[in-house]
């Protein structure tokens, strides 16, 4: 038993007799009476009842594969042969035996359910036992059992009773096995290697009942009670029963095929436990006839064939021996395959893995994640420092006065001949400047250019007055520089020639020859700043 045993449906043991079906599953056992029609087949009502009740008895779960059913068949209709064929592999031997069956049997192998087992070998030959039965008789049982969710395999009950499913000791002497019961008796003779002949005798317990009923003149139910008392309390017979008993035993002895084997005769069935039966039979068989019980343990709760086969199969999945097979194998399906243990295990593991993966992930990655989050938290002060520095530097950048840009704009927009006399600028972008121009209209142009530059949000001429000599115009202008984000991309700030060529630069009072050495790169052209305007 292992962890996957619950996946298996186990093995079901069945023994079919002409009138009864015995089923054993685990510790449960049950028997069903069989009703047969005129042709010997099971009646439809019997099949229906049997299918329904057997399915309920087996209690197979829908997810379980078909249970293996090991069926023991009665000897009726069975042909047993011993042949010597060349030693070869199993497939080759089976082909040779099929040819042998073709030539010696009235039916072809395709019409038979047949099997074989090796019982001995001599030189290049092997001694094989072949059993065959008409396929039609097996097909009825096969269909019924498959309808119950079983995957049946067939062998002979007589072989199982005589323990012929396992190899015999090479030096065994011949013997015979006689099975008596409610159904016709079965006679199996064996030599030192294995079975040689199987016969059905027309003698049963009912024969004894009939003899008692006719010779003693008692009712059949009284004869039945005599039989039951004999089976349960073996003892001497009543005087009235003795004639019938002698007649019945005599009939059985007469039915035994000749020649009998040299060894003893082993009896199985209910009468095997009655010493009087064994003694009477030995007496009737004549000198040398030794009759022993084939069931010395006396356990008859299970049919002897099933019990012996279970003992032989202990610890093995399928006992070696003679198993009847049909030529046409049924196509394998998911349900009738053997338990797919490997795939079931893989599927189970995958399912388990899927279910456990979140937990395994947590177990594996939690320590690493904890340490990483803790490391990040430990550097939280550093993040705050970065925030402080970033804000500080951003503030520093935003509060830088745009004086260089302002000078560049003024340099490009001052009218020719004009002078920038003073310039006040604060970090709020407020600008105040004083300019003197030659012509009054230049003031208007200057203002227009300042406004059009886009650099200022407002430009106001606070005062405009001519100089006392009427040669120039003095202008006081205030303005507001646009915020830095609105100043970006202005054309006037782009590198290139100034739009107004800084009229004061190249003119008297300017800086002839361009900027002096040492001027930082990017320095705007310097507007003219001359000395204070002389006051007049």
């Amino acid at each position: 038993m292992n962890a996957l045993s619950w996946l298996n449906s186990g093995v079901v043991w069945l023994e079919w007799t002409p009138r009864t079906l015995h089923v054993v599953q685990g510790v449960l056992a049950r028997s069903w009476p069989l009703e047969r029609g005129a042709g010997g087949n099971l009646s439809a009502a019997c099949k229906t009842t049997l299918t329904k009740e057997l399915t309920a008895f087996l209690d197979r779960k829908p997810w379980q594969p078909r249970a293996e059913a090991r069926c023991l068949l009665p000897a009726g209709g069975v042909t047993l042969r011993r042949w010597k064929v060349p030693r070869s592999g199993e497939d080759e031997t089976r082909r040779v035996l099929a040819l042998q069956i073709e030539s010696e049997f009235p039916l072809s192998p395709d019409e038979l359910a047949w099997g074989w087992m090796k019982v001995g070998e001599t030189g290049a030959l092997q001694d094989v036992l072949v059993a065959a039965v008409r396929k039609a008789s097996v097909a009825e049982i096969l269909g019924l059992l498959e309808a119950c969710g079983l995957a049946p395999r067939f062998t002979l009950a007589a072989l199982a009773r005589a323990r012929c499913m396992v190899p015999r000791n090479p030096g065994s002497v011949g013997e015979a096995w006689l099975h008596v019961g409610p159904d016709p008796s079965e006679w199996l003779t064996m030599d030192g290697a294995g079975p040689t002949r199987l016969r059905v005798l027309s003698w049963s317990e009912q024969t004894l009942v009939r003899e008692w009923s006719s010779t003693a003149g008692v009712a059949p139910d009284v004869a039945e009670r005599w039989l039951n008392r004999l089976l349960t309390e073996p003892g001497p017979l009543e005087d009235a029963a003795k004639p019938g008993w002698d007649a019945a035993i005599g009939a059985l002895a007469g039915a035994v095929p000749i020649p009998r084997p040299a060894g003893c005769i082993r009896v199985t069935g209910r009468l095997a436990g009655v010493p009087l039966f064994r003694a009477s039979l030995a007496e009737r068989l004549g000198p040398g006839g030794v009759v022993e019980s084939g069931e010395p343990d006396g356990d008859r709760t299970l049919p002897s064939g099933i019990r012996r086969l279970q003992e032989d199969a202990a610890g093995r999945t399928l006992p070696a021996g003679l198993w009847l097979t049909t030529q046409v194998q049924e196509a394998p399906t998911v349900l009738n395959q053997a338990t797919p243990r490997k795939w079931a295990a893989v599927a189970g593991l995958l399912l388990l893995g899927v279910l456990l993966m979140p937990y395994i992930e947590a177990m594996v990655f939690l320590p690493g994640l904890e340490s990483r989050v803790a490391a990040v938290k430990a550097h939280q002060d550093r993040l705050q420092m970065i925030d402080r520095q970033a804000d500080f530097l951003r503030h520093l950048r935003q509060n830088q006065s745009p004086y260089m840009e302002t000078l560049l704009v003024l340099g490009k927009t001052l009218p020719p001949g004009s002078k920038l006399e003073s310039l006040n600028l604060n970090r709020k972008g407020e600008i105040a400047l004083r300019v003197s121009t030659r012509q009054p209209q230049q003031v208007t142009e200057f203002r227009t250019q300042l406004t059009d530059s886009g650099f200022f949000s407002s430009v106001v001429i606070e005062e405009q007055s001519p100089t006392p000599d009427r040669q120039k115009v003095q202008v006081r202008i205030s303005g507001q520089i646009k915020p830095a984000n609105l100043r970006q991309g202005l054309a006037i700030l782009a590198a290139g020639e100034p739009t107004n060529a800084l009229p004061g630069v190249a003119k008297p009072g300017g800086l002839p020859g361009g900027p002096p050495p040492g001027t930082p790169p990017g320095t705007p052209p310097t507007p003219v700043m001359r000395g204070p305007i002389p006051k007049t």
Partner: protein
Amino acid sequence: MATRPLTDRERRTLRFGGIGIAVYLVLFFGLQIWSYAQRRRTDYQRLLREAAVWNDKLAVYDEKVRMTQDLMEKFRMDPGKLSRTSLVAQASAAIQQAAMQGGVQLGPVRETPSRASGKELTGIQLEGMGPAPSILGFLETLGTLGFPLVTETIQMSPAPMGPAQVKVSLTLLLLDFEQWKATERKPDA
């Protein structure tokens, strides 16, 4: 003393008892293991969420660090390394040295006390005179002296000494990094 062999009934009782104990143990320890694993998983998921929040937060810092480094290079200054006690003296000395090297003649230099609300360490008022290019070069140099200087006001006028001479009056503010606190992020909503 020979031990009496157990009957089938006794064996069956022992077997059922063993199975019952095994089932109990499996359930007992199984539930404990399950609850432990569930707890670990809950902790792991909480940490995952926390890590995602940190990840989003740190993603912003990539850009912030790059911008800070750029500004540090531009101003040639690491605010964290500024010494508050000697910052005013160092800045004043650096300004005067820059003016001297740039050919600007400095006039009076005054320091004004800081305003508490302005987060400034001090204010520096200075006057200088020199050729216009030197003045411009000096003004340009102020931003890269390595001190947090903000030009509060600037006044430029012609110097009386001669043509092309410019007089400049500057009011500089020296910011105090110690008073600076990171602005707290306001909720977007």
